[in-house]
Structure formats: C-alpha cells, structure tokens
C-alpha cells in the first residue's frame, strides 16, 4: 500500500489536522556562523512562511546545512537571531525548540523497534501512555508503515527506514520540520517516488512548515514553494520556485537550478515597456523578456534546453542556427548538443519529428517568454 493511499485514508478517518503542529514561521535575522575563525555562513536574512516548503540548495560548502543546523540549535550563531513562530530561540537548547528533523542516513535508533523509535519523542516529552499509543499508530499510518511497528530498523529497506524517520518526526507535531538531504542515500528510483510522496504528504498537512536542505535541484523544483540558493556561505538568490527557474537573477542560480544554455548577447534596443527586449547574438536578432536593459549592454541570454524546439511555430518566434555536434538518446529524453558561434547549446526533447545527424545544420526556436537576460558579472 502506498503512502498516498494511507494519507488519503488518514485524512478521511481522523482528519489530517491530527498530525499538524501549529504552523510556524522561521526567521533568520542576520544569522552568521563561524567555525574556528572561518566564516561558514555570512549574515543571512531570510524568512520561511508558515506552512511553506522552503528549499535551501547549493553545492557542498555553501552553508545550507550550517543554516539548517543553526535553526536546530546544533550550531551557535556567531551573530544574529533565529526566530521560530516569532519567538527568539537563539539561546534555547535543541530539545526546547519544538522541532523535528529527518536526515540523510535516517538516524533511527538501531536497538529500538519501529514503534519505540516513533514513540521516543513523546516519551521524552513525558506524554501519557494512551496518547503515545494513539499518536505513534497514527504517524505510522500516515507513512504507510503500520505493519512494521515491531521490526528493528535494520530489518527495513532504506526507503522504509526513511518513512519511519518521517513518522518519528511527525509524531511530536513539530513547529517546523527540518529535512537535511533526506533522500540522498536512496536509489534513484526510490528517490523519485519518495519525492512525490513527500509532495503528497505536504498536500495533506498543509500547515506544516518545512525547511528542506538538498544539493539536488530536481527535489527542490518538485517540492518547494520557494527556493533559496546558497553559495560560499552567502545567499545567491531566493524566490518562488517557478520564477527563479524561469528568470534566474545570476549565472550561478541559472546553472544550479538545472541545465541552462547561456549565450552571450548584446542589447540592441532598450525595453519599450512591453516587457520585451531585442538583443543580438552574432548575426541573429532575438526578442526576449526583459526590462530596464540599457542598449549596448552585454548580457547572457538564458534559455533552458527543453524550451528550444526544432520546429517553428507562432509562440517560438526566435530562431537560432548551429551545427549538431552530439546526440544522446536516453529513453525519455534525447539530448542534442549544437555549436552556435563557438558556444554549445543543448536541446532536450521527449520526441523528435526527425532525427538529425551529427554535423548537420540545426535550426532551433524559442519563445521570448522562455528566455531571460542575466548580467555577465551578476555572480552573487
């Protein structure tokens, strides 16, 4: 039985509100962290709305995990304050913050059975026995692990262990759920299905605020309401998921959120208020979304590989020509790499009308709405 089925059932039987904590905001107020003199998180100001999933993404060493650990209380900020639901928790020990966390390696207690793992937080908070029984049963039901209550963690698969870890976190009804690379240890296939299950879980528990740290942009794109991109200990970009993906403010966010074609262009005519800008890439004149771009400025045109098509239509008004260098078929997607005036452009498509051959001339089309401009040096 899948998690979705259980979530549906749980929602019907007793109302998903059963497992909801009070919706809480999380606020970083100029939070910085130093470790042995080295600054690992530069002053960060960021707010997570109640009931929101905010994904913090970035490469190793970007400070995303450090920021999460500061919220949990495992790391003491060198400066700034952290507020949860409006209350300053900066000086509270972890056990007094009312949070719960799910981590990459599950961190289940290996000598306790599933039931006792899930009950741990309630015991620690001295909940009465009847309430513990009820809450544990409910949390296991929500993650579809009811029939495994008597098992030991080592008797479960990775995906099952991660469900138990989620149940353990939900059972205490945390103000905020912290997820630290929760799916990184799982196989690609299980990871994909767990991403969809977490999405369903949040649909059933809409008041639960989730801070989700990952280095995998596809998890963030699927799950997050908003994404904060960190780099070298500083916030590089933050915004609503779709906006950030379509209009990344800088090169780093463009490339970190997914494959991006970045083509050097020169602004030809300044924006005329229509929200469109004409740019020139070599010989070609292209129209892209933009505003306030001064004529003559050098920019990078950002267009995602799936937004390039090989067939023109009304919407895909821009045309760009190149030579096909590589073609890789990967089942669902076919990748084409074309050379355009020295730069390499990638096209991905689920279906191709005709299969072009290497060395052939390739015309690619894209819609002005699917392209945006990035300042060359807007790196952070």
């Amino acid at each position, binding site marked *: 039985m899948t998690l979705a089925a259980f979530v549906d059932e749980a929602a019907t039987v007793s109302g998903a509100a059963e497992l909801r904590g009070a919706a809480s905001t999380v606020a970083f107020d100029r939070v910085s962290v130093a470790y042995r003199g080295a600054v690992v998180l530069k002053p960060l100001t960021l707010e997570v709305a109640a009931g929101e999933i905010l994904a913090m993404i970035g490469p190793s060493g970007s400070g995303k995990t450090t920021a999460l650990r500061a919220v*949990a209380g495992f790391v003491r900020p060198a400066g700034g304050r952290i507020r949860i639901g409006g209350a300053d928790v900066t000086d509270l020990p972890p*056990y007094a913050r009312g949070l*719960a966390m799910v981590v990459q390696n599950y961190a289940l207690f290996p000598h306790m059975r599933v039931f006792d793992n899930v009950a741990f937080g309630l015991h620690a908070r001295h909940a009465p026995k009847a309430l513990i029984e009820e809450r544990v049963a409910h949390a296991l039901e929500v993650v579809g692990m009811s029939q495994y209550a008597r098992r030991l963690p080592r008797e479960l698969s990775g995906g099952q262990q991660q469900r138990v870890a989620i149940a353990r976190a939900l059972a205490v009804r945390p103000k905020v759920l912290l997820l630290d690379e929760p799916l990184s240890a799982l196989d690609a296939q299980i990871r994909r299905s767990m991403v969809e299950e977490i999405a369903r879980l949040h649909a059933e528990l809409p008041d639960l605020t989730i801070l989700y740290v990952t280095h995998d942009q596809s998890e963030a794109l699927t799950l997050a309401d908003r994404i904060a991109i960190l780099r070298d200990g500083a916030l590089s970009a933050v915004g609503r998921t779709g906006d950030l993906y379509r209009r990344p403010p800088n090169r780093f966010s463009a490339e970190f959120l997914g494959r991006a074609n970045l083509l050097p262009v020169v602004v030809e005519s300044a924006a005329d208020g229509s929200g469109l800008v004409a740019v020139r890439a070599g010989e070609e004149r292209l129209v892209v979304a933009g505003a306030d771009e001064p004529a003559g400025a050098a920019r990078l045109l950002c267009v995602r590989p799936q937004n390039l098509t090989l067939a023109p239509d009304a919407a895909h008004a821009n045309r760009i020509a190149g030579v096909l260098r590589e073609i890789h078929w990967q089942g669902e997607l076919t990748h084409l790499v074309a050379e355009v005036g020295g730069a390499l452009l990638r096209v991905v498509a689920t279906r191709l009308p005709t299969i072009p051959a290497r060395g052939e001339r390739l015309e690619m089309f894209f819609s002005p709405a699917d392209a945006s401009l990035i300042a060359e040096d807007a790196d952070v």
Partner: protein
Amino acid sequence: MSDAAASPRGVKVDLGALWVAPPLIALAVLFLYPLALIAHAAVYDATDVVNLPAAWATLGSRAFVNALFNTAEIALAATAGSLALGLTLALIIAFVPFPGATFVARLIDTFIALPTFLATLAFTFLYGSAGVLNGALVQAFHLSDAPVHFLYSAWGVILAEVTVYSPFVLRPLLAAFSQVDRGQIEAASLLGARPWRIVRQIILPAALPAAIAGGSLCLLLTVNEFGIVLFIGAKGVITLPLLIYDKAIQESDYQAACVIAMVNVALSLGLFGLYRVAARRLGA
C-alpha cells in the same frame, strides 16, 4: 552490488600448496604441541605413570580451592572497578566539553604502554607500611604503627589491577562513543530528550558491545595476571597463576602445576568463548 555477495567472498591468491606446510608445522610446534604436553603432564606423575588420584587430590586441595576463589574474587572485583572507572571517564572525555579532553584521553591511552608492575611499585610508596598515606596518618594522629594495610590484601591487588586495566576498558568505549551516529544524538535532542536520557537510551546501548568486549578482556587479563600479584606479595593472596609458579618452579611438582594450569586454561577459554558469543550476539 549484492550480486557480488552471492559470489565467493574471500579473494584467494594461489601461492601454491607448498607454502602452507612450513607455517602449519610452526603453528603445531609452537602452539599446539606445548598445550598437549601440559595436558599430558597433568595426568602423568613424576615417574611417568598415569596418576589420576594425584590430579584429583590437587583439585581438592585447600591451596587450589583458595587460589581459585581468590582468582575469581580479584578478577571480578577488578573488572567491575575497571568498567565503572572506564565508563565514567569515557563518557566525560567523549561528551563533556572540558578543555584538554583529548589530551587526557591520549594520556590514559599511554598508560597501556607502561609495564604493569609499575603500578604496584608506585602503590607500595603510596599505601605501603612506610608509604605516603601511612606516614601522613601516623604523623597526623600520632600513631605508633601504620594503620593502613589493605595493600597487602586482595584489595591491594584489585586496586592495582583497576589502575592497570581500566585503560583497556576506556579505549574500546571511547572508540564506540566516537562511532555513535551524531545524527542519532541530534535527532533525540531535537525530539526533546535531555542529556541523561540520551546517554541512557542512545549512547549506552550503542556502546554495550564495546563495554562487554572491554570487560571480558579485563576479566581475562586479571584471571591470568601474574606480575602484579607477585609484586604486591600480599600474604595469603595466592591466585592460580601464582600457585602454578609455586608448584612448578619452587616445589618442582610438575603434575600439580599442570593440573592447575589446565584449570586456568579452561577458565580462560571459557571466558574468551563467552566474550565471543556476547560480541557476536550484539553484532559487534
């Protein structure tokens, strides 16, 4: 891939069968034959005749029973003491933030390197008749005689063994503590558990195999301890190894020595077997 697990696991480098013989012979000559000789000598008397009544008489003798009792008492007490001291020290070094914790750990580690009789020698200066403690007490209370004599009893041996062997408990415990998943401690802490609950419910269960291994090693070493007991030279505190030494070297009664040695061997192997079973059961 778990496919691999299905194929033969040990990688064999075929060095040729000829290379096997000499070391196996060395093994037999150095390890097995000597042991067999002792077993043999245990049932044969000085005239090379099977003499089971003499062997039985040795086992029933007051000296043997006393030694067996002393050995068990000293080993159990010293092990309990080492476990208590080692566990406390390990918990503090691993989890209490005090400056120099790693230095203290390394220092204790170093004590494993020191000769065991050293502790005894030092204890003589401390608690001996003319030692520091007695000297201080005599002076403070104007006594005519040294009041503290425990060093020359089983307690002296136990105290010395605790000193010498608690590092053997501390070491595996520190290793186990360092391997406790930090994520588990953090998860427990976020779920609302205070430090003592974490120690009791997360850390100690994780360190149990190490404690059992360290404790068993301690028990094994204290049962077989020879140097410390001899050095202390406490009257009446004769353990099995000391009795074997007396019988073999002082009295040249080889049969008795070998009978007692076989008991000592059985005791050691029994403890070792228990330890292996416990370790395996706990998945260590």
